[in-house]
């Protein structure tokens, strides 16, 4: 049981730490290190406690069922191999956390760094422990995303942005391929559970999908592990801070690909295709990486290509796929992580203390930083495969496998020679690293005076190098059992016998090693003078590069093709786009419904009513009138629109929908007021727009009329066809039967809204609140058009708007025509305020049993407030009532959510309601379901949103008054100045002619 909880902790802890880390203050460097280090140490302790459970090939599982029918579970699984990788993730993570504390400068935001680092560690842990192959892909993609963010940590640097983007595109595309492979694999096996997949190797290899699965799977693994020809993202990613490189590009992220190869080798390996592709790619990467590494002048560039080369070695081992090869692969994963992490850190120290990573400038650092030099030399020797160090042991195993394993192909015959050839270059670049940086005369023109780094920046390197040495000397004693458990968990009963001894006698592998070393040293000595002059790559490789191919593909795919498509198909004109959409939708509807017999009407003219026909005669006239008048007679159009709305409300009332009728009527009022307020800021369109009667314009209108008529006729036909068929059984029956027994209310519509489908309503009020806030914030920067700034004629006493701005200003304080004309209505409206509020309360309270509810009540309440604004003016009303619409909205949302969550206290799902009746004095029995409380939240949000939108628009008139005052002050200033200056404000509106004003 403890083990089950521990693996849960292992996977959750880094993410929890990440959330905590990002919320700390920017300067809390030591606290961040303590937190991140604490997480890593806790993880290591948990792993230590878990080891006995997995040491003999055991597996710990923990599954949380999610969608069992689709075999999608959140399954965690820990075995020996994953354990070993997790130790790398947590152990090297701990060292990187300490190292980064000294590496990052005080100006770097540490919360982001540690937050992302922990989140990355969490994604990596999840990937390693995933027991479901879909879950594995999810975490796999998460590592890509967090690595993107970490590589781009210094986002002010263009190289970092490019490197991050390249890495994301390559590894992200690989992740998509991997998802495809996993889905196919799951289909073939019949389960997405990792254990079942691992046990189904024979089925998979015999299945027709095998080539597809293998291809997609390998694209995923190769992109992640930077295998040729996808290797180019890794050198670009060196723009990342060095701690990130040390963590991601040595020990964790790039190892995910080879982890996957080894993990799935029991399922997918053993075929010719696997051998040729995997071993071939691995060998090609091994050689290409090693050769280019020799030519790189940048320290981190050398290490990056060296990493590519070593990953190629591990891939080649996985491609061979024999028991011994798998042992060697696992062993080399560990060894490489240790020495490469220490080398990256050493390179970071050199960069940090000298100011450069260019090997053409660095020289003789052993004098100024002897300890760092000693550490880096040992680690580089391990990289080159020098005996007594850990890199030597796993490389020997590789040589032995290359030489002793046979399947009779030419690649198999060539393997030992290729391996020796690559190893020669490995020795040469390791030598170059050691000799140019640390030996020779001390460099004189370095950007900084070199010296030893802070002690604790060096400690992680010291520890890693100590491991390099100890593992190299006492392999069996130190990691024998760990390696054994890893091998057992991958190979099971097929695990081979092997020995981790230092000395196996003068065998063929040792001969290969010695040959490589001698030849490598000779190669370096021969090539050394030319290396720094070569252009970062051998001549034959500098012409073709995967990078340039990638850049070309990206340029064509993301710029040229879209531009060409846009040029042919696109339009910047909204009308053209709209027409296209409408026509497409209409064609789609016609195409799918053509000849559908079930849409033929059954009985026409069943019950004709003159009153209803007359009602809709008026309604249709209003609609068509609004359509015709909307261009030049906007106020008329608005009035006609209101007419159509009223007819709609009456129709709802006719056909047994009182709730809808009430709400439609109230919303109609609010919408009309809203549009009236908006009209103030839109042009008064009385004069004809030039070119409006040209033949093209007429043709366009005619064409649109045809389109619109087709749409209308189609909708009418569908509506009629549906209405003339009896409904049959619908979901509505269930709601009608259970509204009272389950929801405790007799108004089924309201019960659906606040109980059965309350979650939808919750979403809807959230949308309403968002819209209101958007309106509010859009209007905060509102700039009225110049010709709308002047006071409208309705607010002045004169028929004509004042020409002089002075008169305009005085007009603000004088009683206006508006005040006089509105005197009687405004008194009535003020008196109506309490009545409106009472109606709102009434609508709200009866909602559960009778027509009404939160929406209707809320809109009624808002109208009550709105009337006060209409009756007087903004200043008058706001000196008397303080309305805080945003608080209404916020509290309403909070209240609705809390009521919903309250059901969790009693063990019911979110938004489960409880219903009963209470007796209120004077009012009587009132339904007091918790749904009513939820409805109260709805009520508050509706009030807040409607009022906020209206007030935000109403307040614009204050703004324009201020604008007028400011312009006038500026003009007076200009008048006082001796010479005329150009006006900086938009030119004053042209004088408005009397005809237009009327």
């Amino acid at each position: 049981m403890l083990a089950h909880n521990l693996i849960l902790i292992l996977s959750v802890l880094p993410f929890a730490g990440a959330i905590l880390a990002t919320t700390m203050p920017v300067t809390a460097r030591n606290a961040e290190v303590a937190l991140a280090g604490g997480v890593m140490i806790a993880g290591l302790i948990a792993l230590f406690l878990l080891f006995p459970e997995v040491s003999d090939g055991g597996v710990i599982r923990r599954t949380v069922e999610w969608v069992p029918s689709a075999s999608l579970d959140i399954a965690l699984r820990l075995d020996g191999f994953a354990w070993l990788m997790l130790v790398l993730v947590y152990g090297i993570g701990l060292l990187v956390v300490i190292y980064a504390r000294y590496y990052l400068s005080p100006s770097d935001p540490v919360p982001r760094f540690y937050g992302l680092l922990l989140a990355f560690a969490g994604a990596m842990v999840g990937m390693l422990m995933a027991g479901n192959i879909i879950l594995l892909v999810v975490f796999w993609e998460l590592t890509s995303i967090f690595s993107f963010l970490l590589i781009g940590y210094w986002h002010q640097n263009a190289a970092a942005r490019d490197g991050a983007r390249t890495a994301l595109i390559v590894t992200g595309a690989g992740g998509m391929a991997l998802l495809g492979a996993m889905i196919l694999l799951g289909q073939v096996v019949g389960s997405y559970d990792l254990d079942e997949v691992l046990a189904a190797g024979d089925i998979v290899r015999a299945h027709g999908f095998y080539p597809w699965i293998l291809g997609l799977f390998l694209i995923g693994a190769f992109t992640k592990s930077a295998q040729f020809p996808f290797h180019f993202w890794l050198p670009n990613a060196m723009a990342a801070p060095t701690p990130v490189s040390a963590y991601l590009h040595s020990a964790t992220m790039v190892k995910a690909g080879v982890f996957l190869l080894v993990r799935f080798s029991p399922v997918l390996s053993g075929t010719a295709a696997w051998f040729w592709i995997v071993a071939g790619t691995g060998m090609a990467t091994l050689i290409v990486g090693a050769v280019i590494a020799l030519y790189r002048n940048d320290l981190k560039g050398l290490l990056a290509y060296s990493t590519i080369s070593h990953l190629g070695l591990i891939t080649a081992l996985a491609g061979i796929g024999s028991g011994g090869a798998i042992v060697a692969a696992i062993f080399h994963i560990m060894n490489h992580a240790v020495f490469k992490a220490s080398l990256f850190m050493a390179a970071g120290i050199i960069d940090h203390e000298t100011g450069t990573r260019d090997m053409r400038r660095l020289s003789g650092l052993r004098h100024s930083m002897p300890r760092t030099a000693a550490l880096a030399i040992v680690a580089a020797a391990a990289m080159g495969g020098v005996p007594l160090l850990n890199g030597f042991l796993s490389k020997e195993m590789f040589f032995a496998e290359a030489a002793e394993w046979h399947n009779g192909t030419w690649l198999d015959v060539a393997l030992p020679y290729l391996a020796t050839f690559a190893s020669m270059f490995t020795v040469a670049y390791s030598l170059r690293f050691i000799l140019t940086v640390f030996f020779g005369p001390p460099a004189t023109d370095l950007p900084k005076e070199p010296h030893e780094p802070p002690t604790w920046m060096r400690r992680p390197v010291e520890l890693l190098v100590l491991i390099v040495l100890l593992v190299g000397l006492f392999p069996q004693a130190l990691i024998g059992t760990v390696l054994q458990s890893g091998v057992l968990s991958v190979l099971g009963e097929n695990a081979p016998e092997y020995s981790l001894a230092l000395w196996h006698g003068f065998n063929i592998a040792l001969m290969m090693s010695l040959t490589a070393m001698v030849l490598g040293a000779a190669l370096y000595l021969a090539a050394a003078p030319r290396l720094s002059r070569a252009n970062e790559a051998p001549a034959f490789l500098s012409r073709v590069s995967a990078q340039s191919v990638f850049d070309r593909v990206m340029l064509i795919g993301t710029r040229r093709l879209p531009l060409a498509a846009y040029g042919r198909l696109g339009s910047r004109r909204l009308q053209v786009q709209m027409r296209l959409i409408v026509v497409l939708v209409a064609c789609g509807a016609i195409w799918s419904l053509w000849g559908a017999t079930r849409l033929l009407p059954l009985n026409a003219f069943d019950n004709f009513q003159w009153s209803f026909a007359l009602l809709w005669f008026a309604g249709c006239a209003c609609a068509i009138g609004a359509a015709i008048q909307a261009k030049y007679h906007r106020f008329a159009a608005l009035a006609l629109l209101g007419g159509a709305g009223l007819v709609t409300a009456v129709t709802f009332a006719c056909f047994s929908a009182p709730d809808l009728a009430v709400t439609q009527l109230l919303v109609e009022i609010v919408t009309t007021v809203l549009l009236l307020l908006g009209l103030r800021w839109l042009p008064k369109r009385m004069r004809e727009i030039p070119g409006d009667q040209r033949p093209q314009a007429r043709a366009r209108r005619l064409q649109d009329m045809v389109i619109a008529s087709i749409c209308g006729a189609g909708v009418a036909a569908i509506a009629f066809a549906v209405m003339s068929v009896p409904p049959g059984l619908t979901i509505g029956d269930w709601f009608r039967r259970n509204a009272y027994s389950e929801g405790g209310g007799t108004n089924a519509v309201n019960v659906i809204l606040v109980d059965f489908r309350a979650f939808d309503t919750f979403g809807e009020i959230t949308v309403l609140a968002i819209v209101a806030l958007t309106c509010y914030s859009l209007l905060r920067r509102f700039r009225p058009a110049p010709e709308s700034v002047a006071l409208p004629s309705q607010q002045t006493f004169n028929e004509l708007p004042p020409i002089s701005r002075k008169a305009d200003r005085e007009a603000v304080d004088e009683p206006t025509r508006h005040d006089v004309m509105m005197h009687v209505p405004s008194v009535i409206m003020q008196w109506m305020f309490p009545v409106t509020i009472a109606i709102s309360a009434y609508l709200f309270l009866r909602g559960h049993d009778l027509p009404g509810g939160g929406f209707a009540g809320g809109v009624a309440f808002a109208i009550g407030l709105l009337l006060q604004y209409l009756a007087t003016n903004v200043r008058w009303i706001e000196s008397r009532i303080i309305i805080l619409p945003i608080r209404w909205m916020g509290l309403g949302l909070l209240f609705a959510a809390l009521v919903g969550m309250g059901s969790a206290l009693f063990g019911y799902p979110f938004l489960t309601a409880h219903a009963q009746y209470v007796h209120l004095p004077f009012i009587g029995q009132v339904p007091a379901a918790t749904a009513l409380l939820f409805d109260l939240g709805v009520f508050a949000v509706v009030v807040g949103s409607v009022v906020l939108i209206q007030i935000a628009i109403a307040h614009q008139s204050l703004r324009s008054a201020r604008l007028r005052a400011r312009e006038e002050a500026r003009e007076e200033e200009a008048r006082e100045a001796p010479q005329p200056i150009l006006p900086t404000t938009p030119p004053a509106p042209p004088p408005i002619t009397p005809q237009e004003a009327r």
Partner: protein
Amino acid sequence: MEMILSLSIGVLVASGVWLTLRPRTFQVIIGLCLLSYGVNLFIFAMGRLVTGAAPIMPKGGFVDPDNFADPVPQALVLTAIVISFATTALFLVVIMASRGFTGTDHVDGKERDS
């Protein structure tokens, strides 16, 4: 009645579509309002037209669904009414701001060139 209502829905939709294809922002906003009436009535009509039977249930006892109006389209339309108010408001604010910034009420933000 079915015939009248469906014809009316057709007229509302046609007027709305025609207006949304027009060049002035105010025409488009009026068009969207008309379109939303049409669509709301259409959804409502999917519950069939019932007169004199509101969806108010008795308290307990057997409920025969045929004697009451279908509450589902009504609940859908109720939310649709409120949401179409919100869209109208948002669109209005956008066209106000757009007119302030561009000086024109053409939907493209500039008058037609020719």
